[in-house]
């Protein structure tokens, strides 16, 4: 590998760099230890679950128990059903957000129309509003409309999570796209709609994929909406995991850890696949990298 050019603040090897690496190491021990501990705990047997030792005979039994009827009998949580519910609610919420968010993001990114900033800021304000302000009335409304503890009700309320993310990220992508490309397509006789579908959409496809996947992660990780707006029928994994903690008298730390690991895995895998786009996504398009 050729000698790397040094960027701002970068310097060549020195004793100080050993100290810097040591400092990084400290952070990563702190950062990864809970995850490692969760994996270890998930591999322990019932007898070993209250031990704090690192050496033990690992077993995959907990995962089998969590996902089977046995786990449901022990903890009264149907975890397999919860995973399915999470997938339905999160994929549903992201799809709805994409269908209504892409046109809005395109309009806001391409034209400066009267009220566009108001619309965009109202959407952004959902991201920062205290959730309970909207959940309490929804709790009352959902009970009246029969939407309490349903997938439709959850997909509706998850728009608060997925819509701002998708609209703001995609607007930043549409703004970056030169208008000349579409103009060229229009001059070639494309209709406005074909120019959008054939030229604009393919260009922002990586942005759409990243925004959709990031929205999926946040929908999956959401807790406060399903905590209040679902009962026992359509409970997603985040709420289901916490149910393992309060299982009548007997504690199942190893089962809790196994369930937590299963619930944490999809967002982790998705996040690693879109790492390049994370900075832009997490800052709602404010920081591009």
């Amino acid at each position: 590998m050729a000698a790397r050019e040094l960027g701002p603040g970068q310097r060549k090897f020195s004793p100080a760099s050993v100290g810097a690496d040591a400092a990084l190491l400290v952070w990563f021990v702190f950062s990864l230890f809970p995850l490692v501990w969760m994996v270890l705990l998930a591999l322990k047997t019932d007898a070993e679950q209250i031990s704090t030792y690192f050496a033990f005979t690992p077993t995959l039994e907990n995962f089998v128990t969590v996902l089977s009827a046995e786990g449901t009998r022990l903890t009264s949580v149907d975890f397999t059903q919860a995973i399915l519910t999470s997938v339905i609610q999160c994929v549903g919420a992201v799809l709805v957000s994409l269908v209504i968010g892409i046109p809005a993001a395109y309009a806001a990114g391409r034209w400066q129309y009267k009220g566009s900033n108001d619309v965009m800021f109202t959407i952004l304000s959902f991201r920062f509003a205290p959730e309970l302000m909207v959940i309490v009335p929804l709790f009352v409304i959902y009970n009246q409309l029969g939407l309490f503890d349903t997938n439709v009700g959850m997909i509706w309320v998850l728009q608060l999570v997925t819509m701002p993310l998708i609209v703001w990220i995609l607007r930043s992508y549409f703004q970056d796209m030169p208008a000349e490309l579409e103009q060229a397509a229009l001059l070639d006789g494309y209709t406005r709609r074909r120019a959008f579908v054939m030229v604009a959409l393919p260009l922002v496809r990586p942005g759409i994929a990243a925004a959709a996947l990031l929205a999926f992660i946040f929908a999956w990780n959401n807790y406060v909406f399903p905590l209040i707006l679902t009962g026992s029928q359509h409970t997603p994994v985040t709420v289901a995991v916490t149910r393992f903690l309060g299982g009548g008298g007997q504690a199942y730390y190893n089962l809790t850890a196994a369930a937590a690991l299963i619930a944490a895995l999809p967002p982790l895998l998705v996040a690693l696949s879109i790492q390049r786009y994370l900075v832009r996504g997490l800052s709602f398009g404010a920081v591009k990298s």
Partner: protein
Amino acid sequence: MLRIGRGGATVTTTAAPPTKGPAAADRAPRSVPAWRRGLRPYLLSIPAVLIIVGILYPFALGAYYAFLNYAAVVPRPSFVGFENFAEVLSDPAFWTSVRVTLFYAVAATVIETALGIGIALLLNRSSLIGRIFEKVLILPLMIAPVIAGVIWGLMFNPQFGVLNHVLGLGSTFNWLGEHTALWSVVLVDVWIFTPFVAILVLAGIRSLPKEPFEASAVDGAGWVYTFRRLMLPMIWPYILVAVIFRFMDCLKIFDHVYVLTAGGPGDATRTLQIGAYQNSIVNLNYSQGSTYMFLLWVIVFLTARYLVSVLGKAQRRAAGSEE
């Protein structure tokens, strides 16, 4: 809101998008009447606006609840004006919640910002170990906060938890006791969200132009001087974006605190959202819970306006136009 372009020096405002009006992008050969072209952005936004209205309705309803005496035991509520506000504002429990929330938000944001900048600087050196760590940096950030709470709850357990064992604290140290709980939930917040600050700041550092730093190296400027006088002002907007996101989210913190302590012991970790949850969902006093949320919303709104104006100034300064 202002946006940071590629490189701290090219800051653009969203108020000036690439094309000024419909005309520039719309010279379609097949002529569409001008009035229809003007309508286009509105038509495209209709579905989103409908969803917005659908969400704003419960919001407005929630604000309205704050002026009613609505509770499960009062199914036919009546308008009571500012009675709830008078009641809540004279309740010491509310002010405890305000204090807990502000302490949490300030402590978590300050620690995360300091650590995040430090980690970003260390990773920017691109040592071998740094490049490996960078790949796994974001893992805690991508786990659901409530699951992070569950994991830490298992580790905090005085008898069976691993922390007391590893740190040699015996089996009596209570991480979630009256005086320790608030710091412990801040610790979990730091564990989850420091990577957020770090990756934003790191992106900022990497977007900086090289020339000023080469010049300062040639001039023999020390590391501390270069960081304080050159790098910090240039990455300040990135830091502020991270601070805004963190501080605002901390004001409405709920997930991992709720699963770790449910607001206890006593009201030691009863943040405003947990207080609202207890009032409206546990005690089924919707109006009192909504009053909590209305007041929190006011705090969030004022904080957001202030921080965004600070960000705007910082971005203009980083862009070089001194005021």
